[in-house]
């Protein structure tokens, strides 16, 4: 203990310093709090919305009939900048390799979180009925 001065013990000084440090750390963490769980829900919603719109606007069906992913690409390129999408369409005969594939321009498959929404399609061609599976993967840019 010092004979003079207002800091009368090292313990008190260390205690106060630690308290101030804890408060500063608490402020830092409070300032970085974000509602990330809602981001996941938003991403799921966006992916489901996108594949539903593609299905309802018959983009998927037309792309299969034309055997071209250009129509799909033009639609997914027109989505919000925050999202990245890739779409794969598998034929019932081969579920390993997609018959059509499109990834949004400017997006790379570098994500922390991927959300997949899928649809089963029934396409009526001139000769028969064929089944397809469309898988849309979505992630934040």
């Amino acid at each position, binding site marked *: 203990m010092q004979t*003079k001065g207002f800091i009368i013990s090292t313990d008190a000084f260390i205690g106060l310093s630690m308290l101030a440090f804890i408060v500063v750390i608490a*402020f830092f963490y*409070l300032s970085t709090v974000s509602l990330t769980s*809602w981001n996941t829900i938003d991403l799921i919603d*966006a992916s489901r*919305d996108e594949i*539903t*719109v593609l299905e*309802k606007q018959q983009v998927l069906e037309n792309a299969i009939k034309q055997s071209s992913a250009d129509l799909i690409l033009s639609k997914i390129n027109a989505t919000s900048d925050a999202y990245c999408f890739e779409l794969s369409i598998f034929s019932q005969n081969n579920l390993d390799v997609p018959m059509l594939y499109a990834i949004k321009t400017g997006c790379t498959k570098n994500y922390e979180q991927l959300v997949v929404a899928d649809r089963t399609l029934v396409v009526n061609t001139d000769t028969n009925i064929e089944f397809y599976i469309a898988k849309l993967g979505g992630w934040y840019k």
Partner: protein
Amino acid sequence: MVDIIKGLLKVPADVALHKHFSAHACGKLKFITPAKLGFARFSKGARLNGRGQFFSPDLIIALTVFIIILAFFFVSSHAMSVQIDLYYIKNELEDVSHAVVNPLVLFGGEPYNWETKSFSDLNRMGLANERNILDDEKVDKFVEYLTTDYNTLRTKMSLGKYDFKFELQDFNGSVIKEGGYVNPDFIVRIVQKRIASYNDRQVIVRGIISYAN
């Protein structure tokens, strides 16, 4: 004896210590150290006034430090509670925004043909013909109600204390339709975006929910 005590305590000459140590007590006192009076040591400049109040520069500095620390913790705890409140409001707003915007793009409302009926017949708002496919007439009517019956519609949409603005945008950011209100004094604002089809166009439905005190 009184002079000895005065000298030890460094008190001014005008301090009447004899009030505290009377004459007959002085007879019994041989020597009183400051420690016996409750003070281990007095710093330079310490004063004991006539009413027994003690002042010293150390005491004033210590009190100042104590008050500063106390004020710091009051201010910081208040700021923390504000941050936590804001977090809860944001979370509630996210919840409300999802609950409000989801039915707009996924359902047709209750009754389904509410756009052909009067406003009082509307039970639940919905803008879709089918999932994610918006109905032109429903959108027009909704925008109209947001202008003419904003507060009643807000109640019907279970928005409570929050303000709501609806925007229909294309992917270039151009607004196709809009209605409602964003409180300019908002402290929290959440923008809920959904993808939908409107007149065979791929559009963004934006629900902006704001809260002001």
